[in-house]
């Protein structure tokens, strides 16, 4: 429960007894400077309110066959979107989607938290994030499918304003393409264990907008130069996300 205190303004009337000043004038009359009433407003601080923690647990589960997920970014923000279909992706999103680096995205939030590490196929991780005094934040989650050029999954701007303590919400989510790196699937272009290649590269070589991902083709399906195999194929949904408000 949040209590709000205002600073109490106390109006103090101070009767200031000024020393009676005499000034000697040439004609020897004495001028008396009268007493002055001075009103002084003094701000008396109320007790400092204790910030109230609002905490969420976000459980990210990897539903794919062989696509490890990069450390998940869990971001609480006031408004806007971390990503949306048709929009030009931010550099922070590109860094995550191409290279699994989430520090840029985390810095965009009012509060944020990173997963401790990669989440392997079939694995899951629960990530806690806490913000103070804000119960109507938007929650976004983003994680890369690392055996791809720029595929990521996640959640954009879930409205938390209706979440009471103890409320829980679960969804399965699909895979998006950041549109920043062409899906060559070629050796040296993907950071995951299937390739061990390049992560983030600031040069954009694809459509330039976020869309749903068309899926990986793989060498087994005759994409020349693809180092991926049938093991790396995925479908929607690819990730399950459960959000629980815990305090």
């Amino acid at each position, binding site marked *: 429960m949040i209590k709000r205190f205002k600073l109490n303004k106390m109006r103090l009337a101070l009767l200031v007894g000024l020393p009676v000043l005499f000034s000697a004038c040439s004609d020897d009359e004495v001028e008396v400077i009268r007493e002055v009433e001075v009103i002084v407003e003094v701000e008396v601080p109320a007790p400092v309110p204790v910030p109230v923690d609002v905490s969420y647990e976000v459980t990210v589960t990897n539903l794919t066959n062989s696509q490890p997920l990069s450390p998940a970014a869990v971001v609480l923000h006031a408004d806007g979107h971390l990503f*949306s*279909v*048709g*929009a030009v992706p931010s550099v922070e999103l590109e860094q995550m989607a191409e290279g699994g680096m989430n520090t840029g995205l985390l810095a965009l939030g009012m509060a944020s938290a990173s997963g401790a590490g990669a989440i392997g196929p079939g694995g899951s991780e629960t990530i806690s994030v806490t913000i103070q005094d804000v119960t109507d934040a938007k929650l976004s989650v983003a994680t890369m499918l690392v055996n791809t050029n720029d595929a990521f999954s996640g959640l954009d701007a879930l409205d938390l304003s209706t979440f009471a303590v103890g409320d829980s919400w679960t969804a399965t989510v*699909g*895979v998006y*393409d950041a*549109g920043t790196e*062409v*899906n*060559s*699937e070629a050796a040296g272009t993907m950071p995951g264990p299937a390739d061990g290649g390049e992560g983030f590269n600031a040069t954009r070589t694809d*459509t330039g*907008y*976020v*869309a*749903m*991902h*068309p*899926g990986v*083709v793989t060498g087994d*399906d*005759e*994409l*020349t130069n693809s180092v991926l195999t049938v093991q790396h194929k995925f*479908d*929607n949904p690819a990730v399950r996300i459960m959000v629980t408000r815990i305090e």
Partner: protein
Amino acid sequence: MNKLTKICAASALVFATSPVLAADVTLTIQNLTQGMYFTPIAAVAHTPDASLFEVGEEASSEIQEMAEGGSLAGLTTIATSIRADVLAEPTAGPLGPTESVSGSFMTADGNTVLSVVAMILPSNDGFIGLDNWTIPTEAGTYTLYLNAYDAGTEANDEIVGGGAPGTPGMPAPPFLTLGTGGSGVTAVSSNTNVHIHPGNIGDDDAVGGTSDVTNSIHRWLNPVAKVTVTVN
């Protein structure tokens, strides 16, 4: 006939939340794919006893001409004859990847369900489909995600051909960059009823191979379309 007006994705959100005079339903339909196109979309509010298509049943000839060639002529004729409310712009251009289209209509009494169809390109007989979704009576904004269906009326050979019903191959409008010389992925459609589309195969040989579509561009995973319905 009402029109669907193409808008950019950013303004779609604004539009969907703005009340529109003299209309109680506003639709925004977004292409979610990275590399596929939609032919002009038909959104139809009609009575629950009517149906544009049913999964597991044979497609009507009107659905066939929509799914194989993008024509809305047959569907809109039928819809008008059953006093459905029709939102369509048959002469509109294609709806490209991640683009949105929006429109509004006042549904007549009894037209309580919504259906949406459009062909997806490049494909032989693929289409986005919403089948008899009950329009909520409570004002609000509702979001639906649509899958890609296969009309089951044509083999998915994935080679350039024609869009007329019964003509093999895919229509090849000029905005599509397609290959040539494909030998044909398959000559049969094993399920001749409407079903979830198995997806394009494609290849990366622009002048040969089995397919004239590109495997790293012209594929999709469901869902392929997002429909935002605002009941005012």
